[in-house]
């Protein structure tokens, strides 16, 4: 159900590692829980991120949620389309709804994240709670 080529965090971010860069977004589960996204706050190009620190926030009609960086790195691109079309996160969370691209400080950091299977079990475990 969750793309197998991605890695996941407990805070519902996904990471796609491409050699030394990593693309970050929020999962389909996260966008469904939040509902219609109406505003996105993203870092600036060149900003340095530390793993587990706030990267930005997404706002829906229900709530504002912080997005945490799954890994450390420097921002090399942000998805500027989201300023006008935040709904891309709802319609295509793993594609056009990506948030930020980082140049990874240490690609090994991603090893601590969850696989698609682990994340699915994690989400189901939470729902059963």
């Amino acid at each position: 159900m969750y793309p197998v080529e991605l890695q996941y965090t407990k805070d519902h971010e996904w990471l796609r590692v491409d050699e030394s860069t990593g693309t970050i977004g929020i999962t389909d589960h996260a966008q469904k829980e939040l509902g219609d996204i109406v505003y996105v706050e993203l870092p600036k190009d060149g900003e340095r991120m530390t793993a587990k620190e706030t990267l930005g926030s997404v706002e829906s009609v229900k709530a504002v949620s912080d997005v945490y960086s799954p890994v450390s790195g420097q921002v090399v691109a942000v998805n500027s389309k989201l300023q006008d079309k935040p709904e891309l996160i709802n319609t295509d969370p793993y594609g056009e709804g990506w948030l930020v691209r980082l140049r990874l400080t240490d690609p090994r950091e991603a090893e601590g994240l969850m696989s698609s299977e682990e994340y699915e079990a994690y989400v189901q475990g939470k729902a059963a709670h």
Partner: protein
Amino acid sequence: MAKMLKPPSSARPHITRNEDLIFELSAPGKVGADLAPLDVPAASAAEELGAELVRGEIEGFPEVSELEVIRHFTRLSTWNYGVDTGLYPLGSCTMKYNPRVNEVVARLEGVATLHPYAPDELAQGCLRVLYETARCLAEITGMDAVSLQPAAGAQGELTGILMIRAHLADRGHPRKTILIPDSAHGTNPASVAISGYEVRNLKSNARGCLDLSELGRAMTEDVAGLMLTIPNTLGIFETDIRKIAELVHAKGGLLYMDGANMNALVGVAQPAAFGVDVMHLNLHKTFTTPHGGGGPGSGPVAVRKFLEPYLPSPLVAHGQDGRYFLDFDRAKSIGRVRSFCGNFGMAVRALAYILANGAEGLRQTTEDAVLNANYVRERLKDLFALPYDSPSLHECVFSDSRQAAKGVRTGDIAKRLIDYGFHPYTTSFPLIVPGAMMIEPTESASKAELDAFIEAMRSIVQEVEEDAELVLKAPHTTRVTRLDETAAARKPVLRWKP
């Protein structure tokens, strides 16, 4: 019950008719006043005052008659839904009755007309009102000193955190972080960030309370304090509060209590006894000062003795000679947080409420608030999921998870409640409950009213089973039906244009 569907727009009764903007009621040449003909020589304002001081036509100003203005605003006023209209179970907001005696007292001439710059000698009565209000709030919380300055809850939080910072700085180092549980009101992290601290979130445990082991790990000597709402936003009392306070104090941190939910404690428990060092109260919630329409609010802060020097300045003092005065001679104060003595009129109303009830009455109020919430919980728990089943105090939080299976979420049920004549409960908060339905009936609701609310909720659950569309498209009986909240947030239209 007959289904309440939208009547055809052409057949709406006059009283439920939608109302045009006053600009749309305008007709050229219409005026609200009929002035007598001039009986003195006409003068030219431009000549007498200078042309640059004369304003020309105000473009687009509505031209309407006096009666049209009166009817327009009178009709609009009937659109309000307030605590004076019916049950308002908006969780976390404590929408309780504002007794009329408060308003009588606040309108006494000496209270209502005193100038804020009047010298202390001419303001003895009002200074005493402030002094007594602070004294009563100190007794209710068990704390040693109170400032009435903060204008509302969030400003009370900011004031409290700034005092923690000032105190720790005096002790050598202000530290870096403040701990906040994930069930907190959103204003808590905001107050902390504005005070120059980093926020660290603590996850709640399966009982909906703060997790002691998580607190133990997080509580280091870099942590300035813990900000805790008691009872928390699930309406659950932190039964480990004494141990929590010990853990925080052992590392030299301070315990801040968000008193937003004091309606569950007044007259029954004093936060000072839990180990709280500083807290705020919401007079516009717990102490029956007006809450809707902008209040204004009032968020007094109460502190233990060692924090008193940092309270905002001035404080009302009672001198040796029996006179009351504003004491500005407070070197360690964090300074002023609000003009004059805060929202004075709210202190007057809160004091009227406290004195009218007395200790016994306040205790009864709290017990009734808790009883009402538990009655609702008991009578709805077979229909809605209860994600945290620890005992409830003044409010209960269900989840929409069973109804979500039919595609109906908390917001849909809330909107359908409007058709039944009730103000919705709080939706989607606290964030730790997906699809939260937060119900706080307060002590003001009678059993008959609670029963009507419960019947409405039960009826809606049946509708979800039989005809989910009816709920998904609600409300049907209002002037304006379901709004597109997403479009309103994504592409807000903030200005009317002809």
